[in-house]
């Protein structure tokens, strides 16, 4: 992939991520906002790919775009009745939030523009870490990469390595906890979302 192609692609991806995000904010129609969000999240996934985080990008597409967003759209559909489709904030709110948002953006941008970021020693491009699921799984188990900064990571990919000697604290346990948590959350969400008799308004 030539540099130009990659640059053009990158630019497209950036725009694909940023512009729909802005559109999510701007649009007043909640369904449209959901659609714009879909685009933005997909753009983000593209960026992940571009960064070489294939697994993350795939997960992003699968879970976010495929799962979460569908869920959101379901929610939109369930609630987007009549007046609630176009709930507008007052212009004062707008003014204030834009002010705050932009100042935040300005600050962050200012931070990003700090010269520290250009220190290549600190933030050199370590190349795309085409982490296969194997490696990620090993990382979860706490087996670090042999070479933290692989000069040629491609050579080593898809090779089952011997278990490294040093075993650090991996992410497996958090992952398990989160998984169980996720299951519970989903069960809870199912429970909450379960259709039930609307309780009578208690007067007095």
């Amino acid at each position, binding site marked *: 992939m030539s540099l130009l192609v990659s640059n053009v692609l990158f630019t497209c991806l950036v725009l694909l991520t940023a512009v729909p*995000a*802005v559109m999510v904010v701007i649009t007043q129609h909640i369904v449209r906002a959901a659609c714009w969000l879909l685009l933005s999240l997909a753009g983000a996934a593209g960026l992940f790919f571009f960064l070489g985080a294939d697994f993350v990008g795939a997960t992003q597409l699968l879970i976010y775009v495929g799962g*979460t967003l569908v869920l959101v759209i379901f929610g939109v559909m*369930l609630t987007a009745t009549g007046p609630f489709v176009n709930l507008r904030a007052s212009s004062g709110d707008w003014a204030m939030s834009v002010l705050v948002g932009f100042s*935040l953006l300005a600050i962050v941008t200012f931070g990003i523009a700090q010269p520290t970021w250009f220190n290549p020693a600190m933030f050199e491009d370590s190349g795309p870490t085409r982490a296969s699921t194997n490696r990620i799984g090993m990382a979860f188990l706490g087996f670090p990469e042999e070479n933290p900064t692989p000069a040629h990571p491609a050579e080593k990919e898809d090779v089952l390595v011997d278990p490294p000697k040093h075993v650090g604290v991996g992410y497996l346990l958090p992952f398990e906890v989160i998984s169980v948590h996720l299951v519970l959350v989903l069960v809870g969400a199912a429970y909450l979302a379960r259709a039930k008799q609307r309780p009578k308004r208690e007067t007095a």
Partner: protein
Amino acid sequence: MLIPSLQIYLLVGAVLFTTGLLCMVTKRNAIGVLMGVELILTASNINFVAFSRYGKLGLDGQLVSLFVIVLAAGEAAIALAIAMNFYNNFETIDVDRASNLKG
């Protein structure tokens, strides 16, 4: 033409974050707010992954972004469930009217 670099990623993250924030603030619809949250989470994910590539974070950045994605899914599920309940109970989805718990 943009050349991929850490700053661009971070900038995209910043834009996403800001839009997410604005989305949370300006949307009166509870689901709109939820969308803002998603945007913010995505912004952080972009940052994590970007730092995973640039810098010495290695795979850890990607792993954390995985967590975030999973948690975002759970959060979305719960939030939607709450939103549904809210809608069922108050017959509205306007977060401005969800002020029963104020002091």
